């Protein structure tokens, strides 16, 4: 009985090669004091079978990389996951991943290993990050028995923090895209959404630098202050 067997109680599926890859995944550290430009970021968007945090599954992963302050077109990630028993749910209308596309997808364990390789030790950015963080975390735990510990920053919080003059309440990604007049291709497709989010992030990083927040740690710190203040009862 392997010492690690408890790590993957429901997953007999990983072969030896996958075990090795899993063991080699780098671990992410806390956000540092380096400049925003020096930090490699992974901007993530997931399409899921629905919005239920406990029941629904990740269907596809799209991600782009911000490195050296720019979106690098040569580093993009896109996978559709093979899900054997997905029922057709209304969200198919949004993400457009029909049963045939899902059936043509790849083994979730393989896809998730690829993805975590792609991420490396970079922090993650997503619009409404807590949702993506939770869904990805659960998928990694179910398929690989891996515990996701990478820091996430929520673009939906960063945007109003850094652009207080925008006056859009409860804004969605579409609202911000419209606000900055971003030219995006096909929305509601994991990698197109990730690219749109990344373009938004480039603007936000530029604003952050103007406001003297030129490190990931500073940005995170200001973000949590802002959230606390927002949640504090106002007198």
């Amino acid at each position, binding site marked *: 009985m392997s010492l690690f067997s408890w790590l993957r109680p429901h997953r007999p599926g990983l072969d030896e090669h996958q075990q090795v890859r899993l063991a080699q995944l780098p671990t992410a550290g806390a956000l540092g004091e380096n400049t925003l430009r020096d930090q490699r970021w992974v901007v993530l968007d997931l399409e899921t079978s629905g919005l239920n945090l406990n029941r629904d599954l990740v269907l596809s992963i*799209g991600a*782009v990389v911000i490195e*050296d*302050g*720019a*979106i*690098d*077109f*040569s*580093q*993009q*990630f*896109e*996978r559709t996951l093979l899900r054997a028993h997905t029922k057709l749910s209304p969200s198919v209308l949004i993400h457009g991943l029909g049963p045939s596309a899902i059936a043509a997808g790849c083994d979730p364990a393989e896809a998730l290993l*690829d993805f975590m*390789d*792609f991420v490396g030790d970079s922090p993650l950015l997503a619009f409404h990050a807590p949702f993506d963080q939770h869904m990805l975390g659960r998928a990694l735990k179910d398929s690989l028995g891996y515990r996701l510990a990478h820091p996430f920053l929520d673009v939906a919080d960063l945007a109003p923090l850094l652009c207080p003059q925008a006056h859009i309440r409860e804004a969605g990604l579409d609202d911000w895209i419209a606000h*900055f*007049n*971003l*030219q*995006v*291709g*096909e929305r509601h*497709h994991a*990698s*197109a959404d990730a*690219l749109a989010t*990344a*373009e938004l992030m*480039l*603007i936000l*990083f*530029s*604003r952050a630098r*103007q406001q003297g927040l030129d490190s990931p740690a500073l940005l995170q710190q200001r973000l949590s202050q802002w959230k606390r203040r927002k949640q504090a009862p106002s007198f």
Partner: protein
Amino acid sequence: MSKADAFTQAGKTAVLQNIHGTLQFLQRFPPFNQMENAHLAFLVEQCQLRFYGPGESILKPSAGPVEHFYIVKQGRVVGQRPDSAETTFEIATGECFPLAALLGERATRTEHKAAEDTFCLQLNKPAFIKLFALSGAFRDFALRGVSSLLDQVNQQVQQKAVENLGTQYSLNTRLGELAMRHPVTCSPLTPLREAVTLMHEQQVGSIVVVDEHKAPLGIFTLRDLRHVVADGTSDFTQAIERHMTQAPFFLSPDHSAFDAAIAMTERHIAHVCLVKDRRLCGVVSERDLFSLQRVDLVHLARTIRNAPRVENLVALRGEIGQLVERMLAHGASSTQITHIITLLNDHTVCRVIELSIADKGDPGVPFSWLCFGSEGRREQTLHTDQDNGILFDARDAAHAAEIRGLLLPLAQQINQSLALCGFTLCKGNIMAGNPELCLSRAEWARRFAAFIREATPENLLKSSIYFDLRVVWGDEQGCDQLRQGILDQVADNRLFQRMMAENALRQRPPVGRFRDFVLTRKGSDKATLDLKVQGLTPFVDGARLLALANGIAANNTLERLRQLVDKEVIERLDGAAYEEAYHFIQQTRMQQHQLQTRENQPYSNRVDPDSLNHLDRRILRESLRQAQRLQSSLALRYQL
């Protein structure tokens, strides 16, 4: 699978979405729309997308040799020279930079800044070089930059002509290419009969008489044969040298068809010899030039000069319109066309004067017919006002009044006849039939001196019309003296120059700091801009001022610019840019007029930039920006 392989794999799948989206974006703009998909995909895959906030510097001269190629994906980039805050150019969505610096492996000379929130695709130099090697379309574009854009416009114009007329014929064709046949020649001592037989056998209208080195000595044409026969010569054994036209006019094979057409029109000849290294290498006839056109320039000019009555001239005006239309379609440039219109208008005016004198009787006083404004500058388009006057010599005031009395009835009839021929009567009454514009040389000189001495707004406006004066008919000497007087006085009067500069700055070219174009809307009309007033006038006014201030006697705006460059008043590069810009605006204006004629709309100089295609819009914007630059340089020179 190794990490690198995994990334490659991931990259390949992602091509489906984001790369494809960017690809589609690029395919809306030249040169990307002409590149192969594989090359374009290579470009996009190697790109980084960067964001720049307003005012953020993208490239600057101090940063050393340029390492990246940029394409504006969204937003606007402006260029600023280090020594001024003036915007020298603007780069909009879909455009790229800095080609010259990148190819020259040097730093950029201009600082490139984001004018607003701007995204740029950035390609590193090794990838740029690879793309340069891979894609012919890209290489072509990169090497020729904006001038290749202008070429594309010209190609479009000519392509349209080919579609309309099914011909490849162009006025820019080298004469060497037009003269396909070997020229028919003979020696000076050849008997007339033998020479004519040779012409008959070869089915040509001319024979060139050459010496033993093939240098042309004379030309004998069918017209000359007519003279021989009409003169009653019966001895056809005489040597041809007795009947040929001596020292025939010639051009080099590198001259253009346009040059030959102009020479034929000016000189009333039908054949031009082509000579290279003093050897005859071809003959171009009127027929060779215009074989594809029903109306031809030379024939038209001759018909005008020989028109028996004013009514015939009126009828011929319609043919001038057709000729211009055809020439524009054949790819003639705006400069060539204004030149042709001016030439034909001059012929018309001369003929009207001759016919009027024949009709009313010769007043018995020598006079010169002057023209002003665009006619004076040789920049007329098809619809044109009369701006003319009369200059004569008189001993004193009383003598001048007497001569005026003699000339005025004739002048008024000429004005009326010209109106019949399509030269609209001038609303401001700047016409020779007006006693104030039928003056002796002393009176004109006094009048012009007053304009310069008292620079009232009214006088400034008048000087902008009258100081472009030129003689159309009659002796030119008096006019030359008047012009020299103007040049001397203006050069001497800094205050007048300054007022003229102020005047030249009044019409601002309609390009905005934040938008493409600044348009004006009249009532419910679509927003438009005025190509003449807002586009050409800044160049015309600027060139006039600088020419007068620097003793340049030329009237034509492009000629003035060229001479200003020669005198080093304007930098050579700037002069070339102004010339190209002026040229393009004029061309756009003429195409607009042509379109209006075809659709039976009234003539207008207003254009809606949205009605132009992407390329034309972009070049128009750059052209108007050149007008802006010329104005800024005036403001600097005269400290306004």
